[in-house]
């Protein structure tokens, strides 16, 4: 579930004469791997979104997030310039260290072209200058980020097959059939690599979750934001849940999937998925109030979500133009630790209204 819809909406506002015709997301179309690991330039937006929990050598937890967005613009197809901004590549990266008390994050954006920024088809292979995310033939992802305050080189090794979200990868986001995306996740990725801060590289290991999602028409006009969580469960299972919210906070659309360690998936729709705020945190920078601690019900299961730290707000007004909360979160069930994942809260800051 991600933030880029903002871009698309604006992009469609008609700055261009002869915009390219985009493909719509339709149900019943099966995902085709490995091609679908790669980019889908015929759809308006696409993202690869890796989040996870790392452990440092001194046994401290560290959250990380890497996101590469691809946006097909409405650029005039008659424009023969190699600089014509047909595709934009945007990347966010963040580290969440409770010892610091807030997120460290960085962002980049560029038009695709000249081999400097691209999202290749065929397999996951995204690049923005010196930031890369690439899936090898063996299925292992390598990502490299060179930020101002931090750098990291991580290797994400799958331990399970991809988890197709919704109806075999067709994931509805709203009441209308076109409001949907193709969406699969790679949960329970084993992470190894190094994180460098203040010039000091540190070896880390942990687990991560990767989402890959592409769509052309994503969100209902009545929705102002969403809550999303993706978590690797301690027992080897994986949980994904989201709800689209109206302006008054009521859910417009919700869905959840739970895959157990044996690969058996349970889908939850509509009223079966409920997010209940338990504690709010107000950002001193933007004044936005986020429900950083939540109770999530999926059918009869009740999960409690607790943030690694309260301040995991990400101000990306320089690239995607949005302010949101994206944070490492622990899950408990019946008071017992159940897993670790990431919670995303959008549409809470006034700045979301563009």
């Amino acid at each position, binding site marked *: 579930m991600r933030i880029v819809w903002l871009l698309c909406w604006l992009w469609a506002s008609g700055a261009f004469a002869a915009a390219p015709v985009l493909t719509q997301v339709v149900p019943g179309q099966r995902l085709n791997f490995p091609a679908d690991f790669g980019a889908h330039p015929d759809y308006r937006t696409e993202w690869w979104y890796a989040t996870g929990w790392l452990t440092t050598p001194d046994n401290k937890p560290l959250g990380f997030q890497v996101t590469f967005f691809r946006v097909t613009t409405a650029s005039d197809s008659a424009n023969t*310039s190699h600089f014509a901004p047909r595709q934009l590549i945007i990347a966010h990266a963040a580290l969440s260290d409770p010892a610091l008390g807030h997120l460290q994050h960085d962002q980049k954006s560029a038009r695709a072209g000249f081999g400097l920024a691209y999202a290749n088809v065929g397999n996951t292979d995204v690049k923005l200058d010196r930031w890369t995310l690439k899936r090898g033939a063996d299925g292992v992802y390598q990502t490299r980020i060179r930020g101002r305050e931090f750098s990291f080189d991580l290797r994400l090794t799958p331990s399970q097959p991809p988890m197709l979200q919704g109806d075999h990868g067709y994931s509805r986001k709203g009441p209308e059939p076109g409001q949907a995306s193709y969406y699969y996740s790679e949960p329970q990725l084993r992470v190894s690599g190094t994180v460098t801060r203040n010039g000091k590289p540190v070896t880390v290991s942990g687990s991560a979750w990767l989402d890959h999602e592409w769509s052309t028409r994503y969100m209902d006009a009545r929705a102002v934001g969403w809550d999303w969580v993706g978590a690797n469960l301690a027992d080897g299972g994986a949980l994904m849940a989201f709800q689209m919210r109206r302006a008054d906070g009521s859910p417009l659309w919700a869905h959840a999937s739970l895959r157990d360690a044996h690969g058996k998936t349970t889908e939850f729709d509509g009223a079966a998925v409920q997010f209940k705020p338990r504690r709010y945190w107000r950002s001193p920078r933007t004044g936005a109030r986020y429900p950083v601690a939540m109770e999530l019900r999926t059918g009869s299961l009740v999960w409690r979500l607790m943030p690694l730290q309260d301040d995991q707000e990400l101000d990306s007004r320089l690239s995607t133009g949005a302010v949101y909360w994206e944070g490492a979160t622990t899950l408990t069930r019946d008071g017992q630790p159940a897993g670790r994942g990431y919670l995303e809260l959008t549409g809470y800051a006034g700045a979301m209204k*563009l």
Partner: protein
Amino acid sequence: MGWGKLNRWLVWGEWRAYPLRALTAVLAIALGVALGFAIDLINSAAYNEFSAAARSLAGQADLEVRGTQPTFDERVYPMLATRAGVAQASPMLELEASVPGQTSALKIIGVDVLRAASMTPDLVGVAAADKPFDTLADDAIFLSPAAMAWLNTRVGQQIQLRAGSRVVSLRVAGGLVRARTGQRLGVMDIGAAQWRFNRVGQLSRVALKLTEGVNLLAFKQALANDLQGRLQVLQSADETSRSASLSRAYRVNLNVLALVALFTGAFLVFSTQALSVIRRRSQFALLRVMGVTRAQLLRQVALEGGLLGALGAALGIAGGYALAATALRFFGADLGGGYFPGVQPTLQFAPISAGVFFALGLAVALLGSAVPAWEAARAPAAQALKSGSEETALNRLATPWPALGLMAIGGVLTLAPPIGNLPIPGYIAVALLLIGGIALMPRLVGLVFQALQGVPTRRPLVMLVLSRLANAPGQAAIALGGVLASFSLMVAMAIMVASFRVSVDDWLAQVLPADVYIRSAASGNTAALALAEQAQIAGTPGIARVDFLRLSQLNLDPARPAVALIARNVDVSTAERVLPLVQAVAVPADRVPIWVSEAMVDLYGFTPGKTVRLPLVGQWRAVVVAGVWRDYARQFGAIQMRLGDYRRLTGDTAVNDAGLWLHAGTTPAQAIARLKALPFGAALEYAEPGEIRAVSLKIFDRSFAVTYLLEAVAIVIGLFGVAATFSAQILARAKAFGMLRHIGVTRRQVLAILAAEGGLLTLMGMAVGFVLGWVISLILVFVVNPQSFHWRMQLHVPWGLLATVAAALLLAAVLTALIAGRSALSGSVVRAVKEDW
């Protein structure tokens, strides 16, 4: 009575007695200082504004890579972006977009906003809140406030710009809030700019930000080595120095003119002080007798001069500031020179420069008082106490050797090469000739009028005039100095400008041989004619022959302004028919010939017959200099090559201009009407040679407007000098006139004597001034101009103008003498002689 009080008393007494003279000296110094300071202020304001604008365009970038031509292949960009040590690379396409109906172009920078945002934030357009992606839109442009005002448009409206032979319409999507006042600039998406203006695949520059810790100079050197001169690596300081060198020669020349005014001021202080000392000889002698030491007397006279200088310099600083403000407002930053387009500088008081000019004014005044002060202190008291010993005071000036020595040194200096590309030795030679000429005046006056005295005459008044002039040449010469200085400079400037203008006029006739000229646009580099359009023009009935011309720019040296590259049809064997050749050599048929302007020889050593390399489209091409031609249009150099060679070497088949030869029976008007009927014809600009010539000469005159102004100021100062010296002399000679009245000479006759004296002296001054001015003009024409602007010209003396000015000066001098005489004779005859008891 203390010496300090006496000091004050002496100074004040002198000034109160002769306020006009003191005032004139003060004003002269003030004018010189004001002119110098104003020119300096205007130049530094323009220069600062220009560099600030350049810096704002360069932003945070450490280095900039530019082509040798206006654009280069964009494939360089990813190479630079991925080079080790580069943190960020921002590609840019710079255009001078031709605007229909406007004579100047709009600078447009195509940027990748996502790359430019952090490096050159000034180049990020402010999009409307509901259209944030207009910065990437391919139909949008962001305009600076000055550009919006100039094009009379606002956000939401469309503007029309020329691309090739067509017109592109762009939507004004927003402003550039950080553009500088007066800066005309448009910013659009780089992809859109490439596409809309037919520049796909081309960039103008790539700005680089280096990774922290990378050694800038080492990186620059290594990159420059790798690029092998096909592209240039610049720091923003290089850009500033380039823009500085653009106008340096022009600025220095203006400053020299200001110094001339100051020099005339110095001379006025000298004449004021000299005459005042002479007149007070007996007063000073008395003081000496009363026990005042020589040193004290020396200080006294120096103090008087210093006070005049300080007063004048202070007035000059204030006046200069006011003058600069006025000139900036009415003439623009380049004073009509055209060096700083699109810049609207704000005036800022410059303390250092103010200090320098104040000191200069003061020093000049002290210098002017030095000789009189020394003379006052040196004179033997007993001799000086006697009446009528004034002339002995000036005997020293009659020695011709120092003056001749100065002139000889000046003559030798004209042979010296320029210093730092500036004709400093030439200017020093001019100054030495002037000083020498003035110093030689007493001797000359004495010689000439003594010779005239030998001519037998029976009219006593004539005898009186001639004997006076022959026997008191020192005082006469001082009166003359002002006339001499201003007239000789006027003559020199007039001859120089006239020579230049006549040469330019002849040259224009030579370079405009066709019947009709067409241009794709009045300015800018986005309008052009493609091959098909060229064929349509050539095929228009009534047109016998077309000479197409491609004009572009070539950067041969990062520190210098670009040279013009002109491609046209030139027949090697008859090159002189289309080019104003001054030199030609034979070139083997298998080599590519080029013809270079004189500046290319001076600046780049492109001598005839030499094989040189030109960086064209990223490759070094060997060409041979087949000839040198005269070019008054581009002082930084121009290269002409054959259109066929140019097309073969660059692949660029477009042209900007064309000269048309018509069949007999077709009038230019008919041809223009037929061309206008072509599909692209209405957008072109048409001109007949006569119109181009008229416009060119108008531009020429405008660029010399400031020179004319300074010249006029020099003459006015000279006249001030004449007036001041005459009145001083006449007052000093009140006794003599009183005596003449006693022996029966009428008041009218005395006035006639004065008028004759004034007229003759001025005539003499003008005669010498003309000779001196003519010599100085030779230096200006044959030394200073070639060294500053790298063009040469034939000498042409504007007799009519010189005669008019001479007559006016003569009339003014006679009138001045009469007015001064009337006031001197207004006192009672008895009182005038009473002093001489």
